[in-house]
């Protein structure tokens, strides 16, 4: 059994089913005068068919190892972006980039704290130069708006 493709197929069927169900709350209209819900519904059913076409052969074929899920990388890269999203609007570029770098470095886990700090400062400087001065966007290096 091709485990990876079985999961893939189930996921597609599941997502398609969800969209088809959710679209019911929109007016489907008729095929002549399509409402907002019609096209998503058609696509959702098409997706479910594709899901089946992925799932069924996978039940009989060999192979398809699921590539290892890098938990640490995932958690800390996503986490770093999340920290950025929380910090940036409240405290500005420099704190945001410093926290981003620090959290992201845990994903790597092989840099010494000093190196991380230097990297964080360097990246925030580059960020300020590019985004604040060069491009003149509304992003500011520091602010206080908790």
């Amino acid at each position, binding site marked *: 059994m091709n485990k990876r493709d079985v999961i893939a197929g189930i996921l597609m069927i599941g997502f398609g089913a969800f969209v088809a169900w959710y679209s019911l709350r929109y007016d489907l209209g008729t095929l002549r005068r399509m409402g907002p819900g019609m096209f998503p519904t058609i696509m959702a059913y098409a997706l479910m068919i594709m899901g089946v*076409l992925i799932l069924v052969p996978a039940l009989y074929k060999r192979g398809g190892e699921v590539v290892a899920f890098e938990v640490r990388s995932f958690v800390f890269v*996503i986490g770093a972006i999340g920290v950025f999203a929380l910090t940036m609007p409240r405290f500005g570029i420099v704190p945001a980039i410093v926290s981003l770098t620090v959290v992201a*470095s845990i994903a790597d886990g092989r840099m010494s704290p000093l190196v991380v700090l230097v990297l964080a400062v360097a990246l925030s400087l580059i960020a300020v130069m590019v985004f604040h001065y060069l491009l003149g966007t509304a992003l500011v290096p520091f602010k206080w708006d908790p």
Partner: protein
Amino acid sequence: MGSLSSAFDGAVLGLGVALQGSNLVYCIIGVTLGTLLGVLPGIGVLISISLLFPLTFHLDPTAALVMLAGVFYGTTYGGSTSAILLNVPGTPSAAVSCLDGHPMAKSGRAGVALLATTIASFVGGTIGIILMMAFSPLIVENALRFGAHEYFALMAMGLIAASTITQGSPVKGIAMVIVGILLGLVQADFYTGIPRFSFGIPELYEGLSLVALAMGMFGVSEVIASVRTIGRAESYARQKITMRSMIPTRDDVGRSWLPMLRGSGIGAFFGTLPGTGGLIASFMAYAVEKRAAKDPSRFGNGAIEGLVGPETANNAADQTAFIPTLTLGIPGTPAMAIMLAVLIVHGISPGPRLIIDQPELFWGVVMSFWIGNILLLVLNIPMVGVWVRLLQVPYQYLFPAILMFVCLGVYSINNSAFEVWTLVFFASLGYLLRLLDFSAAPLLLGFVLGPDMEEHFRRALLVSDGDFRSFVERPLSAFILCVTAIMLARALWTALRPSRRKADDVREEAAAGH
């Protein structure tokens, strides 16, 4: 051949305008800034042009357009650079370049890839201009023949083509296209204005952000996959970079010229149709090259045809997109809309009379595009060595920088953290799909084309009063749909045939043995 000779006159006139000192200077500024910004992941064409737009108020319209045009294709080129080196498309339109460009970089051929891209862009732009000059009136005439039915058929064709470009099963490709379409449908309904799939979140009224999608699914998911798998102090450049590795081989050149010709044709076609552009052109070109190749299994592993064809198509499309924008007043992409805005701000109204009333402006812009392409060539060939050095930065320093640019780029779209949360969503989705051996590129195209496709579909049915037969009664749309159906049948057949298993198993074993 009256139109050709008058086009030739126009070209000469335009060259005179484009080479004027001040215009040339603005062209250089535009191209340089554009390339630099384009390389930074997260900063794409739209952001660059929007930021520099206010500067153009003080310039005369020709100079303004020349500079913005320079930024426009400079950014596109820079986006490809990032796609090749880092597997992160600097602009969404560079997504296809990741597929074969990055494997080339990983096998030590980054220099060749970058050089090939530069030349391909130049060739695409040049042929685009020639086609434009020769066929301008013809093109405009034909573009008007494409109605809602034809557009729908074209987009369906493009999407089915996109599903075949992945290495794995085309069925997965089609699934990805559909998922992309569904994600694209998260937006207010065109006819009634009611929000769809917004789950009560007001920011979703206008839909999800393309940049967040492209950066998340390609860039961040690449980072997640690579952080711990690239060895300590190692970088992407596993082999030593020698001068020799930067020069294309005879084999490379021999393989490239046909894809460049095909790509130019495809690009010119999609460029002149308002509403389509470089993105769909690059996908089509990739699919065509893969189909035309003697050994399609090379694609996805560093086949130079897979890089050169789409790059040529993209640039040819960008070049020819000026035709409908300037002569019909119909912008094909948001970037073109800003170009139109520049014209309007200066009191010039675009339309069929523009070529007649303002030939210096029209042809000046067209020729400066070409000059800009030459500049790109000249500026970037020496830079190739520099970019390739970038690959040698140890990954542990590189990846936070990538994250930094992506986050700031996405945040600056709307000065809001919401887009960044969208980025989180797409990055997670992208990583999950990567683990399940799905390819993100078809999803991207589905996302971009989905809403347009729906609009054309609904309009076509409205116009023909719900009669489905109208799709096959109109010859053009029937033809395109026929081609699409053949492609689809072929894709499904090869996917479900038992002997396909062998190729997949060989790939599995190779991947497992890494």
